[in-house]
C-alpha cells in the first residue's frame, strides 16, 4: 500500500499531463478538469487521500470540499488505501446470468477475502462494481485499465498467478 507523502506533489510528467488537461477547457472552467485530474492522481498514488484532494483543489483553484464532494460521489476513486491490484468485479444481472456469481465466490475463496478487503500480502483488493458495459463477454472484472472477460475458474487461476509474480 502506498502512503501519500507530505507535501504531496505530482511527478513532473504527470504534472505536465495535468496542465495539458486543464488547458482543454475554456478560460475559467478549469474545474472541468477535476475528474481527469483525480484519475491521474489515483494513477500515481493508487488511492486518493485527503492530502491529495487538497493538492488537487489547490491546482484547480477550487475549495477542497468541492473535490471531496466529487471524489466521494463517483465510485472509481478509492478513498482508502488499496492493494496493488484492485479487482473490480461486475456484480450486475447479465454477468450473473453467465455464471458471474459462482466465479465471484470462487475468486473470494481463492484470495480468502471479501469485497472491500485486501489480501494480507497487500497484493489484491476486491471491489464490487456495477455493470462494466461488457455484458456479452461476462463474467467480467477489471484491474486498472485492463478488462478480463469470459472468466472461468481456470482463467481466474491464471490471472491471479500471473499478477502474483
Amino acid at each position, binding site marked *: 500500500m502506498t502512503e501519500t507523502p507530505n507535501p504531496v506533489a505530482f511527478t513532473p510528467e504527470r504534472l505536465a499531463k495535468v496542465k495539458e488537461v486543464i488547458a482543454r477547457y475554456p478560460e475559467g472552467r478549469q474545474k472541468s478538469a477535476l475528474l481527469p485530474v483525480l484519475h491521474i492522481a489515483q494513477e500515481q498514488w493508487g488511492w486518493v487521500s485527503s492530502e491529495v484532494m487538497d493538492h488537487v483543489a489547490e491546482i484547480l483553484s477550487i475549495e*477542497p*470540499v468541492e473535490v*471531496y464532494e466529487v471524489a466521494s460521489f463517483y465510485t472509481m476513486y478509492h478513498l482508502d488505501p488499496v492493494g496493488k491490484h484492485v479487482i473490480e468485479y461486475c456484480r450486475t444481472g447479465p454477468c450473473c446470468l453467465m455464471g458471474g456469481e459462482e466465479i465471484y465466490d470462487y475468486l473470494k475463496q481463492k484470495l480468502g477475502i471479501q469485497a472491500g478487503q485486501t489480501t494480507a500480502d497487500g497484493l489484491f483488493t476486491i471491489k464490487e462494481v456495477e455493470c462494466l458495459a461488457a455484458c456479452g463477454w461476462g463474467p467480467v472484472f477489471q484491474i486498472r485499465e485492463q478488462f478480463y472477460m469470459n472468466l472461468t475458474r481456470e482463467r481466474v487461476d491464471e490471472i491471479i498467478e500471473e499478477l502474483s509474480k
Partner: protein
Amino acid sequence: MEEVKPQLIKITFDGIEVEVEPGTTIMQAARKIAEADESQGHLVPPAMCYYKPLPTSGGKCRACLVRVAAGSAKDPRPMPKLVPSCITQVQEGMIVENTTNPAVLDTRKSIVEFLLINHPLDCPVCDQAGECHLQDFSFEHGSVKTRYEEDRRTFDKIDIGPFVQLHMTRCILCYRCVYTADQITDKRVHGVMNRGDASEISTYIEKAIDNDFSGNVIDVCPVGALTDKTYRFKSRVWFSKPEDAHCDCDKCSGKVTLWYRGDEVIRVTARKNMWGEVNEFICNKCRFERKKTSDWVIEGPTKVKRSSVISANKYRKDLIAKPDFALKLAATQFKPIDDEREYTTDSETIRHQSIENNDKANHRSLLTDNRN
C-alpha cells in the same frame, strides 16, 4: 416618471384566479393568494427543500408537486407529469390543481412516506419538535402508519465548530444548508458527500465552519439535523416565548427573535416569515453571544400562528381569545371523561390496561387508514 409595469399573467390555482408577474413560479403565485387571504393558506403546496431566499434551492424533495391541467391559454394541453410548483414558472392561462386533485394528494402522502423511511420517528426526544417542517408536513399530509420495516440509516453526531451540531440521521437532504453556505461565504467547507441514500452533509474532515454567518444553517434546516449547541435541550419550543428585538450590529441587520423562558433569553434566531423562511441572515455574534435582554431593544411579541404549539400557554387570554364559533363548537363536542375503572397502583393491572389501550388505539388508526 411612472414605472412601466410588466404585463401581468393570470393563472387559475385550485379554482382561484390570481395575477402575477412573468417569471413567477406556481408556488409563489399560490403564496400570493394566501398572503392576500390568510384563510386560503391551506392551498399553498408544502416546501421541504425550496427556500425563497436561497435562489438555487428547490426541485428536490418533490413535496410541492402539483398537476398542471392546462399548460397555458395558447397550449391548453395538460402537462404529462406532476410538476414541482417551486421551480415551474407560470404561463398565461395556466390551470393548476393542488388540493383539488386526488392524485396530487396521494403523491404527497407518498413523499411524506419516502422522507420518513430513513428519518427517526422520535419527535418527543428531538430538539426540533414543535418547529419542525417535516413534523408539520407529516401531520398534514402523511399516513398514521409506517409500512417500512427495514433498517434505517444512522450516523453519529458531529460538531461543526463550537456552535452547531450536525445529526445526519435526521437530515432529509434538502441542500438548504449547502446553498446557505454557498451564499454566505466564498470559502465553503461543508457540502454533500457520497451519493444516493448514503449521501451526507459533511465537512469530510470535520473542519469547523469558520464564518461569521455560519449559524444561519440552523435556521434554514427544516428538521433537527442542524441544531444550536448553545440551546440544545435547554427547553422545548412551546415552553419559550418569542419576542422580536433588534440591536445595532455592525455585521448584520441586527433584527432577531429572542426566545424567552421566564426572564432568560435562551435562544436567539433570525426572524422567519409566514412561510418559515429567513429573509435577513443574522451574524453569529447576535445569535450565540448576545443573550441578555440588555443587549437588545425589544419590539414586542413575535406574531405566531394561533394554531402553532409555540403560542400555547404563553399569551394573555385576550390575545388568544378563541372566536365565538369555536367556543360553540367546543361546547357541542365536549364530553366529560367517562372512565369508571378503579384507580389502581398495581403494576400488573396497569400493564394489562395499557396493552388494551394500545390495541384500541391501533384499531382506531387502522380504521382511519382504511378510510383514506
